[in-house]
């Protein structure tokens, strides 16, 4: 195959150079040589076919920054899940030494990696327990937003017409209300708990995703694969879920990654103004809030949760940017 290509190229180059200004002269057949055809080789698949997602993922894993981010986020996730389980202290256990500094022993000779807080609870355990709560709230809230947004936006975009009109007017009105105000309002009337924060956030957070999915679906629904599915008698639900949504997945994933830091921020913000998870539970937001009281004397009590909040938000923000680059066909080289 390659040999044939080379000869062809040589010939064409020669003729280009020599016969450039004598175009009307016919090229004689002797200038070409038949190199034969290997039918067996023609059928061999040299490279395995790469799907869109595989390609994007490959690009992501070859990006050093993205890989580092994923390792950091994976580490934080891992520690948040398993650290409270294997730690020798529980998150609400109180020892007699209060406000211990990092790497110190309490009165009974027990070692505390990050010391203790103002009630004598082990900071290291509470830190990762708080991470667990913060991440749980962020993931579940964003997950709910995503599902509601996909269904709402999908229906609105696919059916169009007056359905779309009404549904989008509702979105427009809802999105005009500043979401933090509504979340604060909801939190003041409901009993503070993890699920309350999730519900409050999910009630207002789906709007952005709905808009995004609607736009994507409206672009896609005129394409041939949708028309052929319609001709084959697929129901609207099937077309939406099996054909349209998978095609918008890349946009959804990018948006999802960028929505997580905003959910983490909202949780921290609510905890900070006193609407967070109830005691003795902890989240990074409540830890930061507690830390600010003692900040002057024990700055690490604020700094450590603050760094983890910021690092997680930073990680997801940057990863979202990287994912967008990886998925965006326009940026392909």
């Amino acid at each position, binding site marked *: 195959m390659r040999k044939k290509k080379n000869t062809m190229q040589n010939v064409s180059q020669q003729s280009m150079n020599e016969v450039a200004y004598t175009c009307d002269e016919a090229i004689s057949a002797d200038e070409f040589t038949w190199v034969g055809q290997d039918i067996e080789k023609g059928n061999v698949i040299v490279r395995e076919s790469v799907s869109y997602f595989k390609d994007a993922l490959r690009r992501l894993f070859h990006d050093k920054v993205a890989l580092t981010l994923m390792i950091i986020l994976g580490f934080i996730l891992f520690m948040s899940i398993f650290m409270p389980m294997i730690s020798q202290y529980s998150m609400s256990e109180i020892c007699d030494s209060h406000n211990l500094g990092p790497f110190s022993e309490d009165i009974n000779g027990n070692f505390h990696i990050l010391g203790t807080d103002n009630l004598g609870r082990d900071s290291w355990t509470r830190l990762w327990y708080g991470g667990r709560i913060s991440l749980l709230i962020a993931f579940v809230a964003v997950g709910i937003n995503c599902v509601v947004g996909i269904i709402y936006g999908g229906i609105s975009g696919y059916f169009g017409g007056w359905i779309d009109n009404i549904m989008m007017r509702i979105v427009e009105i809802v999105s005009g209300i500043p979401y933090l105000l509504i979340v604060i309002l909801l939190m003041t009337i409901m009993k503070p708990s993890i699920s309350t924060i999730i519900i409050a956030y999910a009630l207002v957070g789906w709007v952005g995703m709905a808009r995004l999915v609607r736009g994507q679906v409206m672009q896609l629904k005129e394409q041939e694969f949708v028309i052929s599915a319609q001709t084959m008698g697929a129901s609207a639900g099937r077309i939406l879920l099996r054909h349209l949504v998978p095609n918008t997945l890349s946009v959804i994933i990018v948006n999802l990654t960028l929505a997580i830091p905003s959910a983490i921020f909202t949780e921290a913000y609510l905890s900070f103004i*006193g609407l967070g998870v109830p005691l003795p539970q902890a989240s990074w937001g409540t830890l930061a809030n507690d830390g600010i009281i003692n900040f002057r004397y024990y700055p690490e009590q604020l700094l450590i949760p603050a760094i983890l909040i910021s690092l997680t938000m930073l990680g997801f923000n940057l990863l979202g940017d990287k994912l967008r680059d990886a998925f965006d066909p326009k940026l392909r080289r």
Partner: protein
Amino acid sequence: MLKYIIKRICYALLTLLLLIAITFLMMHAAPGDPFARDKAMTPETKAALYARYGLDKPLWMQFLIYVGNIFQGDLGTSTKYGREVTTIIGESFPISFELGIRSLVISIFGGILLGTIAAIRRGKAADTVAMTVAVIGVSVPSFIVAALLQYFLALQLNLKLGSVFFPITGWTSEMSKVLPAFALGLSSMATISRLMRTSMLDALNSDYIKTAKAKGLSERRIIWKHAVRNAIMPVITVLGPITASILTGAFVVEQVFSIPGMGKFFVTSIQELDYMMIAGTTIFYGAFLIIMTLLVDIAYGIVDPRVKLANGKE
């Protein structure tokens, strides 16, 4: 254009009504009793108090009265302070407003400058530094920035210098207003600078810049007169959300720096479950933001003729 403006105003009014309805219903559904904290009282006293605050009427009538009062500029009486909510807002809002304007100015000018520098020096060290600042600014919540600034630039610096450079709390001297405004404006500055960089890169690659270069204009003139002016457009669109984030961020920044603004009252009223105050402040903030967004939308429609065209077709 008129049609577009009228349409926007109608939406804004509907949004406002929805906000009022939600606030009203939530406050009604709120657990507890506004008078539960006080000493035990006889049923007669309670009934008299209920009648005094109009809580004995049916729900829909309460709502209509509430809406009517709001449009007359009456947001009710705070059960905690025993004063009109509008009076409290009138006293504390100017301080929050000043803080907000200061942060807005910092974020807009800082953001445009950072974004422009990053775009001009694309791929160079300045770009990397500016965008690192931007990503950190987006990722660090404002209350953490506030606490850090307070600790390092107010407390530690004062201890080192032996004199007060940035006061730790309060809202009195010019210097005391610097740190809160910066803490509040940082994340918006980051958002604007990222947006500005993208749109500036687009602008720098466009044909009219080539024309300007071909005409032999100076580099400075090309950038500031031609590129920045065109690249600034998308920044206008985020002014609405940015105002919202600055306003809500002010709650916590005011809390950290002990600024006697509205945010502090709002947070206190949340902790004290002062429902009239919460509802009044929410509606006031909501109305303020809705009007801001409306103005931004209309301004964008006037500035950018393409928006007008798109809406004319509808």
